[in-house]
């Protein structure tokens, strides 16, 4: 066993044994010329805060807008009451100070989504790509290769899931929560730093998990794919009489992936350009949520091991040993109490851990394996107060505190016949505090003004002030206008601030946050109970965009190097017809403004279109089809990738037997050869996306 020899910072820079010298450590969007910085932020409160942020999403009430007054007579007993059918139009709340989309568990089941990335990819204004390791999201015309979704804040029941090293939001099978445990997903577009602090440049994605009452028994599910993948999970949950509630879930899976994955760039390798059985994905998860009276405890664990068939970072092609391990866990306690006056207050604390292990094998010029290891733990505390004042004001205020308690960040090269060399050994931590307040002021029926402000203080750079204002006007019960304006910021993350390997990369502790200013107009109109139209126009500018570039000494260093300005908009239509048929359409268009300076970094499609249809079939099954179109885009090298359409089909048998339902899904049903731009860590300029796969899901419920 060789001892580790640390590379001193004053040693002359020399070429690393492994070509490219890009490591997972660098990347988190780091190690390349694209910025990934993930701001460190404090997550905001739990569901209550999120609920505030979306203004009582899903329980927004026409009462809030007055409407016609209730009849003060006995006819209230037998007047026609609209049948509640969990309409997709229950959300968003008309007076939410944002453009909001909610995806329910029924939607997830109907369309056969298996990961959060698949869900979000189908949402108006979003796109997704996959590099055979992680899933990446683009939105509002913005997508940087290798950006680990750092400009979107991902919450689970209000708890922040972006880690505090790379600020990565895990959206694929590497995600923390099994898709079957999701009750709904609340997507709040636009800058949300006024409530959530850093990270929320383009929006907040809040996953609301199921509770014991949603299971009230046990559920077992198994999955199998045509290419040999398998997965299984079990959930038990119950709401006991009197209010105590619990849910416990475990799950695991294995997917061999693409067994023969061809890349022309490696045609001269022994395998002829084929990565054989090198796309294996293995995962396991556990989750629990327990509530008793005002106290709730939530804990989650996920571990995912992925082989990398794409030979990133100059590793040997078709070497199945090159793989990454992501492990994420958390424990959260929250005490929420409602006072008789109608006020609510909450205190919460959480402890999080993130672990990463990357093993990168290279045979030439000499066999070496680079091992990246990250262990990070952090503690967070928060408190919040919400109060209604009269019938006009609803106030929310809170404060948050977070501190790293452990950060180990190393990169080590291990040679067969030499002592290991440690190139990076980072232990810098961070601390952060934030205080926020928001007032929703109902000026009169149908007119609401919302104003929020947050101050964040980070170790190492000046405090950040993030305002947001919204004017929500309900022209009539069917039509709502929203005028929104907000600032948001992203603090540089640990990786961007401190990564240093002594040979190719330098730290930049002088990095500053990047900022975005967004103005937006949203119009939502309902045509009867069956059709809803939502349109939005926005303009935003990001300044101080954190990207990586070579400095004067040819070291890769992060800097506030670029700015982005985009004007865009989207139009969404959705409706319900008789007999359970639902449909939706969405288009979006983004136009870079003339003064933007990061054109070569942005690889998002400028035009997107989405269509989905779900219909019952002979009262025995449901058929759902979705088609997702991404318009032309370019690679980092400037090559053009033409427009392409991904089509998924799902057939659901909701009542296969008593308590048993089945679902058969074909992803990329027409087996199209789709491609996305590749990041600089790859030899490839484009990455072909997975071919058609078919998954069968069986679920049995016991109550």
């Amino acid at each position, binding site marked *: 066993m060789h001892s580790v020899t640390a590379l001193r910072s004053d040693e002359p820079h020399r070429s690393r044994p492994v070509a490219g010298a890009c490591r997972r450590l660098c990347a988190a969007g780091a190690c390349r010329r694209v910025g990934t910085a993930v701001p460190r932020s404090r997550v905001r409160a739990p569901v209550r805060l999120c609920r505030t942020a979306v203004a009582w999403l899903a329980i927004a009430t026409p009462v809030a807008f007055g409407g016609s007054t209730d009849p003060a007579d006995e006819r209230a007993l037998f007047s026609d009451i609209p049948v509640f059918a969990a309409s997709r139009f229950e959300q968003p709340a008309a007076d939410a100070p944002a453009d909001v989309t909610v995806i329910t568990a029924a939607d997830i089941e109907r369309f056969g989504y298996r990961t959060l990335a698949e869900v979000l990819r189908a949402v108006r204004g979003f796109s997704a790509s996959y590099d055979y390791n992680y899933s990446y999201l683009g939105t509002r015309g913005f997508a940087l290769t290798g950006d680990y979704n750092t400009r979107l804040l991902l919450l689970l029941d209000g708890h922040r899931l972006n880690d505090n090293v790379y600020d990565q939001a895990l959206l694929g099978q590497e995600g923390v929560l099994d898709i079957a445990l999701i009750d709904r997903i609340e997507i709040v577009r636009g800058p949300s730093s006024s409530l959530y602090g850093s990270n929320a440049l383009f929006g907040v994605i809040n996953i609301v998990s199921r509770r014991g009452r949603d299971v009230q028994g046990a559920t077992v599910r198994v999955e199998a794919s045509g290419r040999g993948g398998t997965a299984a999970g079990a959930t038990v949950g119950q709401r006991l*009489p009197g209010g105590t509630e619990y849910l416990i879930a475990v799950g695991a899976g294995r997917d061999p992936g693409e067994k023969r994955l061809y890349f022309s760039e490696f045609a001269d390798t022994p395998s002829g350009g084929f990565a054989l059985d090198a796309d294996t994905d293995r995962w396991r998860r556990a989750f629990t949520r327990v509530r008793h009276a005002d106290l709730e405890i939530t804990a989650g664990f996920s571990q995912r091991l992925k082989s990398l068939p794409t030979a990133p970072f100059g590793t040997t092609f078709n070497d199945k040993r090159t793989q990454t391990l992501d492990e994420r866990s958390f424990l959260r306690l929250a005490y929420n109490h409602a006072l008789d006056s109608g006020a609510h207050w909450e205190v919460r604390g959480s402890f999080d851990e993130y672990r990463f292990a990357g093993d990168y094998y290279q045979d030439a010029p000499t066999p070496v394996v680079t091992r990246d290891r990250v262990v990070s733990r952090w503690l967070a505390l928060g408190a919040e107060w919400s109060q209604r004042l009269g019938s006009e004001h609803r106030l929310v205020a809170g404060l948050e505190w977070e501190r790293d308690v452990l950060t180990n960040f190393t990169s080590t090269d291990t040679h067969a016949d030499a002592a290991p060399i440690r190139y990076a050994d980072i232990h810098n931590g961070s601390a952060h505090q934030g205080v926020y307040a928001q007032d929703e002021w109902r000026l009169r029926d149908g007119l609401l003004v919302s104003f929020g402000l947050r101050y964040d203080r980070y170790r190492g750079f000046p405090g950040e002030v993030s305002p947001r204002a919204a004017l929500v006007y309900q022209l009539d019960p069917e039509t709502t206008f929203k005028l929104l304006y907000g600032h948001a910021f992203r603090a540089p993350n640990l990786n961007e601030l401190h990564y240093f390997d002594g040979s190719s990369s330098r730290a930049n502790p002088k990095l500053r946050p990047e900022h975005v200013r967004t103005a937006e107009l949203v119009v939502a109109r309902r045509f009867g109970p069956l059709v809803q139209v939502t349109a939005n126009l926005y303009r935003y500018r990001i300044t101080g965009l954190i990207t990586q570039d070579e400095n004067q000494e040819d070291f890769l260093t992060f800097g506030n190097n670029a700015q982005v300005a985009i004007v865009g908009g989207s139009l969404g239509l959705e409706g319900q017809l008789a007999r359970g048929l639902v449909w939706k359409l969405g288009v979006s268009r983004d136009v870079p403004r003339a003064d933007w300076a990061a054109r070569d970094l942005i690889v998002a499609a400028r035009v997107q279109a989405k269509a989905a249809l779900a219909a019952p079939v002979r009262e025995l099954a449901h058929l759902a089809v979705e088609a997702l179109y991404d318009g032309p885009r370019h690679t980092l090298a400037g090559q053009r990738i033409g427009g392409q359409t991904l089509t998924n089909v799902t057939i659901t048998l909701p009542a296969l037997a008593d308590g048993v339902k089945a679902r058969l899904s074909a992803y990329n049903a027409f087996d199209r050869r789709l491609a996305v731009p590749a990041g600089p860590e790859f030899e490839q300029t484009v990455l072909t996306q997975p071919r058609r796969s078919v998954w069968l899901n069986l679920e049995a419920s016991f109550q």
Partner: protein
Amino acid sequence: MMRPGWILLSWLTLAGAALAEPRVLVVPSFGDPPYQGVLAGIRQVAFEVRVDSQALPPTREALERLVKEAAPDTVLVPLGSRAAQAIAEANPALPVVACFLLNAIGPKGNPSWQTATLELPPDIQANWIRRVLPTARTAGILYNPAESAARAEALAGALRRAGLSPQLAEAPRPVDITTALEHLRDRADLLVSIPDLTVFNPITAKTIMLFSYRHRVPVIGLSQAWARAGALFSLEWDHEEHGRYCGQLALKALGIGGRAQPQRKLLTSVNLRAAAHMHVVLPPDLVGMFSTVFD
């Protein structure tokens, strides 16, 4: 041969006798079927007297004329709050039995004014809750304290007698409903509706049903319309039964008949789809007890 005078006198005597016949004059607020159902119930019991139905006159003057011209041996039976309020304002000298009301309307303490409301005795509600949800331990009561404080307390007492712990949440205005429901979200195993129109009306129904559906808190509805809309089940007086009760009160006001028998027949409705969503298992024999089943 009878002289014309005798004929005239006989006719007048008969006419006078007819005019003095006990009479129930029903004045419905509206012509909707529920009002017709109540009227039918009144006719069933008041068969020995004359029962007339007169639509609520459109103007106050017309109503006052109607009341004034009514024969002495007449009892007025307004159905619904609109008619009851109008007749109360007309201050008739005749006995009044105001029926089909959510809340009592009319002069208090006036022995010639009686009220029959649609409110169910809280013990009936509590017993049905026990029957349908035997494992429930807490029951939420959402109410406007200015309108229904006494009603809420009465219901709370009945729930306690049935072994349930009431969880009261105040909503003085419709905008307070959301906050009050949040308070009940994790505390109440179910939500009991009470005839409080600030809180439970067709406009607030969406908010309440959305809450019920989202948080799987069954709602015990006020009427069949609520059960159809998604409440787990509902209880209300059968309209004809209520009419029969009112008819008995009217006969008693006329000095005919004995004490009115209390209402017994309920109109019960259950929503099986709501039950499935709430994970409430309803045995077939229990479902069979409901007069209307929505699925």
